[in-house]
């Protein structure tokens, strides 16, 4: 069992970049910036085409990539004796750092985790009190104190500006839903995927689920003609 390592498809710009490097089988120390930039932008375009808000972080990386690309195009000064740093280091360094900590995160996930792999005495049997609950009952944390105050304020001043985070949707569940929806059907319109979705976060979950299914090779997404409606179908149906 993996520890939810593939829940989010692309966590952030670095994650997407690493993915592109991997599928292109590129050496991280010698990234073909032009190719990668192109693919990176294609991905962003895809997101936009699907009306998904592209996080600012992705855009910042896009401009960084384009900047590096333009630097790489500059003709090398013949007479330059001074060693100029490879402009790609600007992304290679954070990428390497990111890989390092991602590895650390992965190692954490493979430890004998309490309530997943090992159990202490007297864990609750009714299933309702999972870890979350347990974690909160130990002692009062500072978080709880802050939370308590927020709740009071909200009760007293219902109109106070509060940022409600929309319900969190499970990408896994969405994946199951999509697969169920496709069952027995030849294809399915992409836009219909979201017809029942009631919030932005649900839509994002649906979309992430779709990306994950694509990545797993469970479904393919296609258009009959350029600019046509996007449809999906399971790979099985195609065979």
């Amino acid at each position, binding site marked *: 069992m993996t520890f939810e390592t593939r829940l989010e498809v692309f966590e952030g710009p670095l994650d997407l970049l690493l993915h592109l490097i991997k599928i292109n089988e590129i050496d991280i120390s010698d990234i073909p910036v032009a190719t990668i930039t192109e693919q990176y932008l294609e991905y962003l375009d895809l997101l936009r085409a699907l009306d998904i808000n592209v996080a600012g972080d992705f855009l910042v990386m896009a401009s960084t990539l384009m900047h590096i690309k333009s630097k790489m195009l500059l003709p090398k000064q013949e007479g330059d004796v001074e060693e100029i740093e490879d402009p790609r280091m600007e992304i290679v360094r954070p990428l390497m750092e990111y890989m390092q900590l991602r590895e650390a995160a992965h190692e954490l996930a493979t430890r004998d985790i309490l309530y997943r792999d090992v*159990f*202490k*005495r*007297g*864990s*609750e*049997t009714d299933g309702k009190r999972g870890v979350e609950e347990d974690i909160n*009952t*130990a*002692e*009062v*944390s*500072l*978080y*709880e*104190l*802050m*939370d*308590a*105050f*927020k*709740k*009071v*304020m*909200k*009760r*007293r001043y219902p109109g106070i500006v*509060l*940022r*409600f*985070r929309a*319900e969190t949707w499970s990408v896994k569940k969405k994946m199951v839903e999509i697969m169920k929806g496709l069952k027995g059907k030849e294809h399915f319109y992409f836009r219909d995927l979201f017809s029942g979705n009631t919030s932005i976060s649900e839509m994002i979950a649906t979309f992430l689920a779709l990306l994950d299914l694509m990545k797993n090779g469970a479904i393919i997404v296609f258009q009959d003609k350029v600019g046509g409606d996007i449809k999906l179908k399971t790979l099985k149906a195609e065979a």
Partner: protein
Amino acid sequence: MSNSLKLIIESLLFAASEPLAPRQIHALLPGNDLKEIKDVLQELKNEYEGMKRSFTIKEVAKGYQFRTLPRYRPYISRMLSTTPTRLSRAALETLAIIAYKQPAIRQEVERLRGVDVGGILRVLLKKGLIRIVGRKRLPGRPIIYGTTGRFLEFFDLKDLSSLPTLKEIEELGVGEEEP
């Protein structure tokens, strides 16, 4: 009798918070028959009795449960009585208001919470989390409350300025309603 079945059942008894009946265990291990499970439970019980440890397996409430022996009660109850106290939700809210609004008077806290907080203030005073700072120059000279050094210790804060501001709480999206 398979040793692995015995250890599986033992692990279940160990991790359960309530006594486990043979039937419940059977439901979890349908591959083994009830009779066998009952025998294993009995064997485990006998085994622990013979091991002379500080705990054993007892048959209680139609089930089996790990329990410490009565003679260790004094030590265990001493331990349980010293574990950190959990604050009620009401106490936590009151404490939070005092922490953020201090110096605060009772009326202010009650205005925000919408209920009487006399009893809770006493609890917090007793726990040493709040203290009386003085009296306000207002009719009735109401008592002013503030947090204590123990409060900082309790929440592992270096000083009061380390208390996150409301804006910072907002930025974390704290205060989200439970689903």
